[in-house]
């Protein structure tokens, strides 16, 4: 026999807010999440490039 499902707990204050308010990032100049991800990816690429340059600069 299949066991009954585990009990649900009482919902937190504001639970379900995401379902009705998906919303954007709300950051100045960044209207969509894709833009936020692009900025974070750009930072990653810049860090790697800077560290590669740093390596080259101090290994001469």
């Amino acid at each position, binding site marked *: 026999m299949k*066991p*009954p499902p*585990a*009990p649900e*707990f*009482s*919902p*937190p*204050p*504001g*639970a*379900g*807010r*995401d*379902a009705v*308010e*998906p*919303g*954007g*990032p*709300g*950051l100045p100049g960044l209207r969509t*999440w894709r833009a*936020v*991800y692009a900025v*974070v*990816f750009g*930072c*990653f690429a810049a*860090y*790697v490039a800077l*560290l*590669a340059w*740093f*390596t080259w*600069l*101090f*290994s*001469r």
Partner: protein
Amino acid sequence: MNLLDYLVLFGTLLGIAGYGMWQTRGRRNLTAYVKGAGETRWGTVGLSVMATQASAVTFLSIPGQGYQDGVGFVQNYFGAPLALIIIAAFFLPIYRRLKVYTAYEYLGRRFDGKTRLLGTALFLVQRGLGAGITIYAPAIVLSTMMGWRLDLTIVASGLLVVIYTAAGGSDAVNLTQKYQLGIIFAGMVTAFFVLLAKLPPGLGFGDALALAGKFHKLEAVDFSLDLDRRYTLWSGVLGGMFLALSYFGTDQTQVQRYLAGSSLRESRLGLMFNGVCKIPMQFSILLLGALIFVFYQFERPPVFFNQAAWQRQAEGSGGGRLHALEGEFAAAHASQRQQLQAWLAARHAGDRAAADAACAAALADYERGNAARSATQAALHAADPHTQTNDGDYVFITFILDHLPHGIIGLLVTVFFAATLSSKAGELNALGTTTTVDLYRHLRREATDAHYVAASRWFTVFWGLMAIAFALFANLVENLIQAVNILGSIFYGVVLGLFLVAFFLKRVGGTAVFAGALVAQALVIALYVTLNISFLWYNLIGCAACVGFSLGLHAALGARDRAGLIPAP
């Protein structure tokens, strides 16, 4: 340490813990206890995620890595921003939409009970062991250097975190982590500037970097395709991304931190904050280690940084040999210092030929000194095979105790304990929650919220005591930070494979993924025992094997592989 240092240490740690308990007193609702009261903003989420990952091992061991091997370890973190983007875009919305308390609860709803139990078991085993290391690692180093009793150091730091984590739940963890991280940043920045001020007259920041470069300490990026090299750009981006995907995306220690966000936006921004800050933060700590290396080129370091171990052997029958090696090391260092002063003068005079000649002579002296160091390590190991020959974890604390003023010593020792408490709190909170939600509530189905809160508190205490017991009986491993990462890499890949199948392969059911994960885990353990490749690759191998075996078994089982209850997106 003097009275001022102890006042800073105990005042800060007890003050933060007490404030956290007072602010979060009276949590009776399980959701509030596990996820917080639903008011956590992205800044707190971001700092909490960062504090959970940054244990005392980070601040003790990583400067030692920078001192010994240079800043190349930063590549280990290259995959983190990419992983955090994937988690924010794909994993997080699913967790929040389903309103799960734990990552493994999602596995149970997507597949079945046995897959939930497998994910839970893999998490509890590896995190339970890791939790012991989180306490033991700083305790062994600090007790050795301070002359404190190891068992008392472990028990005192362990009990403090157990008390406030069990009492206040997720909100207490988030709140205390914010202030603990503030202390950590303040301490590390102070150490950085005091170190710069203590460099010899005439040696500027640019000179120090140039000197570190001459000794190959600033090779941050390695483009080599050699699989045997532990840290390369490729192992960091690929292996590191899978490690970070697994750690941040499927380890309840982290999932619980960002599910505490008051909305999807707050949770996502908290993760993106870490995506931007992680690499610069780790690089700064490694650079601190590289600069300590420069400092010790002008100020003679001990021949072996674990001075208590050296002293013990030096007073025994092999003491003559150790003192002779110390003399050789001192002579090489004195000659090297002279050559480096000549290098500095020639560099400032613009005499490149003289600078190159002095640098070459200094490097030769450095190799002589290193030979004496290696011989010392071999002699210590021969006299007592239990002596840890890698003394990298003792570099930073030696610098602090020997060269920083009182007050700042207290602040830096507080940093190590604050980091221990903050990461330990996140782990205990997750272990207690997972045991309650994914095991206990399936055994005891009809109970009140208050009952589950009480159960969660007791499970937190149980895991805390287990971690303390493990720490009390653990033996020191070669390098603490690597031990934690290796342990994680052996299990994380397979766990990530489970979640990737759950998220993206909607046809695969619980039977195939369960068997596929078990076979993949056995394969990873067998490869770890037989191969000698960078441990980061096991994240990729474990994940790929789990996904591949699951797909193969699903094809073989056909209709017998029942798909899960909740369709993948």
